């Protein structure tokens, strides 16, 4: 009988030891961070690179301490293909769920590229209850959704620029042009997607209220390559500023076509292919005078230690050519998102989602994009002073160089009228 009990006790101990082993491994193994995004886009690729860079830096410093154990970080990515024409939102969400199911990430960084995907992705996150730090999708519906049901959506945070902040920054720049150059006629051309339509509409509304006459507001389907229709109308109506809002590769044509059609207006807005340092060569110098926005610092660093460190480390890790090609939207906040998350995990001393969320809300640190905090709806505020908030930069292409013209706190020069 005693022998039987001893055997049973030994077996029970062995079973306990076996059962405990995986748990101990999970508690000491790498912390997986998921990156489900549109990896076919320059923004997606650069954001993944930036997140990997932050992970490598944190791991090189020993990792993140949780429960007295230093644990490494590990990135698991999946291409959602959501930026490609014809890929349904449900497919992008399915890719994200596949990543969560298979890799069991402790948190997600970078996240959805398209606004149309970001909003339903918040429901996926509500289901899995893991921290989600998005850096590319700009949907204005993000904050109202969290405000509407905090308990359900509290796992969602955004470090990237949101459409309402972009609207405010472009409108401020237009106000500056109105004031300094005395112009008052503007024409909008934008991509026919949610964030661009919302941004163009918002800037038009604010600008009209500030004294601008909005002569037109044309939407172009993704993939359009001929903008002669809007350029003809803008030229005929005497537009002094053309405001483009595009993130599709083909949109770089707009500036070239405006030049060849001798449209005299200043082009000031957002054209993603004309943002990287390499675009001057790509467009044979035909983008001179264009005022373009960098949604977040990164490709052009702020004069702050964290921003300059990111810029230099990115160049060192991936080479000068990749650095010069860096996109104006995504990399900066993606790099910061890993540091913000790591700091929250350290403070929480746990990977429990609710504990990490509580610490994320207390974030107060400097990053590549400026000073990072979250407002009550989990959005990083974007303003004019990088010591207090994250900032958006506007620059003007002049003789092959990107000269920062907004905000005034970091501007190198004022906006110049087209020559």
């Amino acid at each position: 009988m005693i022998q039987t009990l001893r055997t049973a006790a030994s077996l029970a101990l062995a079973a306990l030891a076996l059962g405990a082993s995986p748990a101990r491994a999970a508690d000491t193994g790498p912390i997986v961070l998921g990156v489900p995004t549109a990896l076919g886009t320059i923004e997606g690729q650069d954001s993944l690179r930036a997140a990997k860079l932050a992970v490598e830096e944190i791991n090189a410093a020993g990792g993140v301490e949780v429960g007295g154990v230093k644990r490494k970080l590990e990135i698991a990515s999946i291409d959602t293909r959501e930026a490609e024409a014809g890929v349904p939102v449900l497919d992008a969400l399915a890719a994200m769920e596949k990543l969560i199911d298979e890799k069991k990430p402790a948190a997600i960084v970078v996240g959805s590229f398209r606004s149309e995907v970001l909003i339903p992705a918040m429901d996926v996150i509500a289901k899995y209850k893991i921290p989600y730090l998005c850096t590319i999708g700009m949907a204005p519906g993000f904050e109202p959704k969290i405000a509407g049901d905090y308990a359900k959506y509290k796992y969602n945070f955004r470090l990237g620029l949101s459409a309402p902040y972009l609207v405010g920054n472009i409108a401020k720049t237009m106000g500056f042009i109105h004031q300094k150059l005395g112009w008052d006629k503007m024409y909008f051309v934008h991509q026919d997607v949610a964030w661009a339509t919302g941004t163009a509409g918002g800037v038009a509304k604010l600008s009209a209220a500030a004294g601008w006459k909005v002569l037109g507001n044309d939407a172009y389907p993704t993939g359009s390559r001929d903008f002669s229709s809007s350029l003809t109308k803008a030229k005929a109506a005497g537009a002094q500023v053309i405001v483009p809002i595009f993130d599709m590769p083909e949109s770089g044509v707009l500036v070239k076509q405006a030049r060849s059609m001798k449209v005299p207006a200043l082009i000031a807005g957002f054209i993603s292919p004309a943002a990287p340092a390499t675009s001057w060569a790509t467009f044979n110098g035909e983008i001179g005078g264009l005022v373009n926005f960098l949604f977040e610092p990164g490709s052009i660093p702020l004069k702050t230690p964290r921003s300059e460190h990111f810029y230099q480390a990115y160049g060192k890790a991936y080479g000068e050519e990749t650095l010069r090609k860096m996109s104006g939207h995504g990399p900066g906040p993606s790099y910061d998102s890993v540091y913000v998350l790591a700091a929250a995990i350290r403070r929480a001393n746990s990977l429990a989602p609710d504990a990490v969320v509580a610490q994320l809300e207390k974030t107060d640190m400097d990053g590549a994009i400026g000073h990072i905090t979250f407002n009550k709806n989990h959005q990083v505020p974007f303003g004019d002073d990088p010591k207090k908030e994250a900032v958006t930069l506007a620059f003007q292409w002049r003789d092959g160089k990107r000269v920062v013209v907004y905000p005034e706190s970091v501007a190198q020069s004022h906006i110049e009228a087209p020559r």
Partner: protein
Amino acid sequence: MGGLLASTLVYGLVNSVVLLLTSLGFSLTFGLSGVANFAHGGLYLLSGFLCWLLMHRVGLPFPLAAAATVLLVGLLGAAIYRTVLMSVRGIVLSEVISTFAVGVAIVEFFRWKGFTTYDFTLPALVDGSVDILGVTVDWQRLLIVALGLALTGLLWLFTHRTMVGLALRGMSQDEYTALSVGIESDWAATLSLGLGSALAAVAGIALLPLGIISINIGYDVLLIALAVTVLGGLESTTGLILGSLIVGFAMVITGNYVGPRWSEVVYLAAIVIVLAVKPSGLLGKSKELEDRV
């Protein structure tokens, strides 16, 4: 004159010839061999990237890179027939599926290899612009108009006035009769695929300097080629010109007077309407002949 009307006339014509040039290779291949080459868009995209690679990685000057691209893409088209299509020749659905698969493979290959950045542009053959009816148009677009019209004329002469062209047309009209007079079917189809692919490369090299080489253009070009040729009639050169003019002007008129967001709906609507009302296209005869038989 200036203004929106003049712009509609000038850019309507330019857009029509852009569509004509884009579709010429697709139409020629079908007209000469009966093969609907659904790899057309992929070959167009390939020509852009290949020319760029020859210039920036091999160091060839643009004219040489362009000539080499046309030659290589033409040879690839011929090779596609010999390796992919020959075994399914005559089975229309299999031909469509095979060529579509080749096109998708080309497009997705470039996506996989990271050709998604903003670096890929080809230089314009001519710089500067000129005023026509008070509308400023760049010389590159005018060159495209001249090239499109010249190529259409030359191809008509080739298919109607040369022995090779007549042999190819004979093969497309009645394969068995053509075989009985010594025209070899596979040779004819290989040549027509090669010529059509080379024309896709010419179109790419002429049109891509207007913008940037982006992956999705591979799919867009196929849709445009389908719309224009289906509208005009798959085997008719005159139909191709008519289809290009109708779709080209309709897109510009829609963009100018309704809104640019609707202009690209036009060519998709053209496919649906024509297939429903006159499946053989405006000047095509194939469906009517089939009905009569």
